[in-house]
């Protein structure tokens, strides 16, 4: 499975370094943070390091629904020709959908992206909703409209879904039935699973996404779409990347800020939050989770396996590393997990994932034996969600 950088605010040289190191094989650029006039040179810089790098750009049309809000924060999005505020009612008309698709493809045709991500809207709560009908029409129309441009690159339809929608299995199943039997389907899907606008606190959004049924549903999406011949690129999949790859996902992505590790519509709305930046963390493969750099030091003295034994470990040896290093360590760590946990077939991958979760659970037991307190993001319930998610996936995927 491939791992891509999820582009966002302040990329600096992180993406170039990740590609140089070989921990990521591409990038999903954000139209919100990508300046139009810099896109060609930014792509060229990546290609100069690796001409195999996959470079895509998320047009983030799903944010159009926030454009009319007084507290929206859309960054560069408003400067792109294809981006315009749309009300839901406008998009109920398929001719408007063709217009949005056409404008996006026309703009993207002018840039040397390796594949194209088609626009779509966000399905906030249910697959039995007006938004889901509009989203299906976007998917249905993606290939017919794209074909008119004569572009021969692969096109990925966007599926941006609120985690609540995955909980209603009947409606989710019906949606899957529809999108897997299209007459003229796209080459693949760009999947984002996240929170809606009401989920303001990132720890709440995280706990909602790290729910067994949500994990199982996200895995089912990858499994079903792959089985039907589609490539699936998962945006903001972060630590769930190996689980999605194990059941057929083509690529996962993560970035350097919390909002690049999990998707939330809330990021398009200005919130009152602010303050200091979060503490730099270390992604430990054995616990399938992040710990603060200071925790790593304490735990490693008692449980040395908490260290991954990979190149970026050395950056953490002398106290808090530079922030730009954190994401390089994340990419290195997830790439390593992908290599070890994704087998040659789904059954083999599931066996490996189950073992990895058992190992993580056992490590948590050892940690609690030492009485080491861990912060909220490192809590153990997360492991239970992974284990239950895997179990539920096997059941709903009829494995």
């Amino acid at each position, binding site marked *: 499975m491939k791992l891509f950088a999820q582009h966002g605010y302040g990329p600096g040289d992180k993406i170039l370094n990740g590609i140089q190191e070989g921990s990521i094989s591409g990038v999903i650029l954000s139209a919100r943070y990508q300046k139009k006039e810099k896109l060609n040179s930014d792509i060229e810089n990546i290609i100069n390091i690796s001409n195999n790098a996959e470079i895509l750009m998320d047009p983030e049309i799903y944010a159009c629904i926030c454009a009319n809000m007084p507290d929206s924060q859309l960054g560069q999005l408003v400067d792109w020709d294809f981006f315009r505020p749309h009300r839901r009612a406008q998009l109920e008309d398929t001719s408007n959908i063709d217009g949005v698709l056409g404008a996006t493809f026309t703009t993207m045709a002018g840039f040397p992206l390796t594949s194209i991500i088609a626009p779509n809207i966000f399905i906030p709560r249910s697959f039995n909703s007006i938004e889901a009908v509009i989203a299906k029409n976007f998917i249905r129309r993606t290939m017919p409209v794209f074909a008119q441009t004569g572009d021969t690159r692969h096109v990925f339809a966007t599926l941006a879904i609120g985690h609540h929608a995955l909980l209603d299995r009947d409606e989710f*199943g019906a949606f899957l*039935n529809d999108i*897997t*039997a299209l007459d003229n389907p796209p080459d693949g899907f760009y999947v984002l699973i996240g929170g809606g606008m009401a989920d303001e606190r990132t720890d709440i959004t995280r706990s909602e996404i790290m729910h067994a049924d949500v994990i199982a549903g996200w895995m089912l999406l990858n499994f079903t779409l792959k*089985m039907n*011949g589609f490539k699936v690129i998962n945006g903001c999949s972060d630590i769930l990347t190996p689980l999605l790859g194990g059941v057929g996902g083509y690529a996962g992505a993560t970035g350097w800020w919390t909002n690049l590790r999990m998707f939330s519509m809330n990021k398009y709305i200005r919130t009152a939050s602010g303050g200091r930046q979060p503490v730099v963390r270390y992604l430990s493969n054995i616990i399938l989770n992040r710990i603060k750099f200071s925790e790593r030091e304490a735990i490693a003295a008692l449980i040395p396996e908490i260290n991954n034994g990979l190149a970026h470990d050395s950056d953490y040896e002398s106290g808090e590393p530079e922030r730009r290093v954190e994401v390089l360590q994340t990419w290195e760590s997830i790439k390593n997990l992908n290599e070890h946990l994704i087998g040659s077939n789904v059954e083999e991958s599931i066996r490996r994932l189950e073992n990895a979760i058992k190992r993580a659970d056992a490590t948590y037991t050892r940690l609690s034996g030492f009485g080491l307190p861990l912060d909220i993001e490192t809590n153990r319930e997360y492991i239970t969600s992974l284990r239950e998610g895997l179990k539920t996936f096997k059941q709903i995927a*009829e494995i």
Partner: protein
Amino acid sequence: MQNIPALESLQHKLSNIQNLEFIKGGGFKAVYKGFVGGKTEAIKLIYIPSDIENEGLRDEIIGRTLREIDSIKACDCDYIVRLGSLSPELITLNGNEYIVYSEEFLDGVDLRERIIQGHTPDIKTLQCLAFTLFEAISFFKKNDLIHRDIKPDNVIALQCAERPFVILDLGIAFKLHGTALTRLSEFRPGTLPYMAPEMFNARFRETLDYRSDLYSAGVTLYEYASGKHPITRRRDDEYTTMYRIINSAPIPLASHRPDLPIEFCKVIDQLIKKLPALRPSSIEMLLKKIKEQP
């Protein structure tokens, strides 16, 4: 068949057909063998009840017969039975009405008979059967049709290398975007053990697609390969069968036939998944996978 006419009187009525011979009958239909237009054909006789007996039934049976004929005409290929030389005609015999028409006569045995005989097909035979079923479903799909009754009884094995199997009986074919012919909404046309799980959804007419036929094809292939139905058990009543179709996971085909290529068995297992999205939707991809088997 209800109100089956005496062979002599039918022969007398159908004077253009020679050597009429009864083959089988059931429901409202009887099939004969007869010599017409210089060759042997399968003569199909459909009893049309009067409205007095059952309001609307007459219209349904006429509608279904005409749809079956139209469907066969639309799907003209080697994988599906073809029409014969007799165009549909309404006849009256002893005060009863019938529709009569002909299909090509297929000189072979159906797969049910082979299963009963304990025949164990080899991989080449199974590949041919899979190929026929998928190609036929592809033809149905192109014509917005769902066969809805693919089962071993409706597949004839012929002693012909170019045409080893043929699918019969489009009598309950469902026309997508067509007018509903079934009068009772709770009635589910088809043969219970071969019905796809989604057929038991109250909204099935809204969501049904060709993957229901792929499911029935998977069950047929599984049963023919192993001699065992993947879901149902003998002596199960209807409700137990229905429960099993919706909830029970079949034993992988490879457990019954370890001699078959594992990838072939996996394709068949995948076709009989409960959720249609979990069945491979690309018939082109399925055909490619079947051809790739050693």
